[in-house]
């Protein structure tokens, strides 16, 4: 990674607070900076605001206070540069669609108007499937694929958008250990070209892969992976909200 990349912030969050209409605050006074080329993991207990933070970053939600900048732009403007992979549990498993059709959806954009996908779209989708080693399953129904294959298809759909950053929400949910390991190895390889932000509740496993850990539990703390110990983790998950040291960013 070149030195310039290391210092360019791709995400800047300043004094951000968020609450749903009239509800209690989900996130309070969050400050966060993620630099280009990082492999960051967003962790925290369920209901702690992980997905909310992600949705604020891509502009699906609007902050109650504070601001979010992505690539120095507003989240909505920066969206086309983000490859987003949602939790696959959100989709109807019986939807009649083949793997390649799912990847093609990544080629849609505001510029498209009328008619079907072009040859260039189809070629790009096939390339993206090859990148996740699934070139042979393009014609198979999405619903027939294994959990691990589906996650790779959704990753290919995010990659076909030609993103500068990947944002993955619980990509390993429901996968077995071996499949999960393969998936993270693939991400590690992609991290050579892309900034990756990964939401997970499975902290133990990602620790070996990621450089930065962002803890979300109402407040947000950032740790370099190397400083994360049992005490910090119990503070995150113990329900008690206390500030964890987050002034440090160690070199790797």
């Amino acid at each position, binding site marked *: 990674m070149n030195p310039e990349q290391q210092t360019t912030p791709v995400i800047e969050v300043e004094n951000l607070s968020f609450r749903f209409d009239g509800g209690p605050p989900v996130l309070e006074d969050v400050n966060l900076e993620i630099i280009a080329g990082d492999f960051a993991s967003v962790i925290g207990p369920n209901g702690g605001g992980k997905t909310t933070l992600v949705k604020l970053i891509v502009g699906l939600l609007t902050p109650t206070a504070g601001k979010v900048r992505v690539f120095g732009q507003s989240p909505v403007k920066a969206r*086309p540069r983000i490859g987003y992979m949602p939790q696959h549990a959100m989709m*109807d498993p019986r939807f009649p669609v083949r793997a390649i059709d799912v990847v093609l*959806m990544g080629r849609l*954009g505001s510029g498209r108007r*009328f008619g079907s996908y072009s040859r260039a779209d189809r070629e790009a989708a096939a390339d993206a499937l090859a990148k996740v080693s699934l070139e042979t399953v393009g014609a*198979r129904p999405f619903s027939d694929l294994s959990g691990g294959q589906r996650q790779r298809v959704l990753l290919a*759909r995010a990659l076909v958008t030609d993103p500068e950053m990947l944002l993955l929400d619980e990509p390993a949910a429901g996968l077995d250990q071996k499949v999960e390991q393969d998936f993270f190895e693939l991400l590690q390889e992609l991290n050579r070209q892309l900034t990756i932000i990964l939401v997970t509740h499975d902290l133990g496993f990602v620790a070996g892969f990621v450089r930065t850990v962002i803890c979300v539990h109402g407040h947000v703390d950032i740790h370099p992976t190397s400083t994360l110990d049992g005490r910090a983790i119990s503070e995150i998950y113990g329900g008690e909200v206390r500030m964890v040291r987050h002034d440090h960013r160690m070199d790797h």
Partner: protein
Amino acid sequence: MEFFNAVLEFEFLQHALVAGALAGIACGVVGSYVVVRRITYIAGAIAHCVLAGLGIGRWLQVVHGWPVTPAQGAVVAAVAAALVIGIVSLRVREREDTIIGAVWAIGMAIGILFIAVTPGYHEDLMSYLFGNILLIGSGDLWIMAALDALVLVLALGLYPQLEAVCFDEEFARLRGLNVEAYVLVLLVLTALTVVLLVSVVGIVLVIALLTLPAAIAGHFTTTLRGMMALASLLAIAFTTGGLAVSYAPDLPAGATTIVIAGAAYLLVLVLRRIIAGMRSR
């Protein structure tokens, strides 16, 4: 056989067959969207609002002498209902089922009131509710063909966007698609298809014809496109079958069509169960 000879002899049966085919094509295409996006009940509410349009249209025509027809009233009411449900549910998501139920019943009630205050044959009410495909004239066919063409051009021309919005709305939004606009387009397409189907099977039975062919097709196809093609063929087969079976014993064609479609769906479910059971043994 009797039916076959009758088709050659009677123009009204030829019209009915063409009407069934025209409605069947739109039904298969839009019905597939309705099934995968799970908006069957929105389609039901829109269908019941058609009664308001038919009632108001005929009231204006008969009582006030306006140059409108019940069919035009039906199109306006269906599209208006689609837009109301769409806009309100996009704004206040959590109340969607309440809105659907309210629009469903209010549409129906308005229709009944206007039919009651309009002098004339109240048997019309029965044909609105349960359809009378045998009353379709050649002028109606041209209107149906135009509606059909409009529905197909939009539903197929916007296929990539509509497919993406139905599959994963959030991702579509992040790709920069105007999801709200596409949802409204889909609801308007549903409304126009409902109007086409009302003349074939009537308001009460529309949901079944809209969803059963697509539900059956979903068991045999791996793409939304394939589901649409097969569902269209099935819908045409059901309307044709409904006419053929009902003709000799003089049964209502709309109800016969729906019973055939329902029987086919049940048969598919049972056969799949048996096949799955045999495989697992």
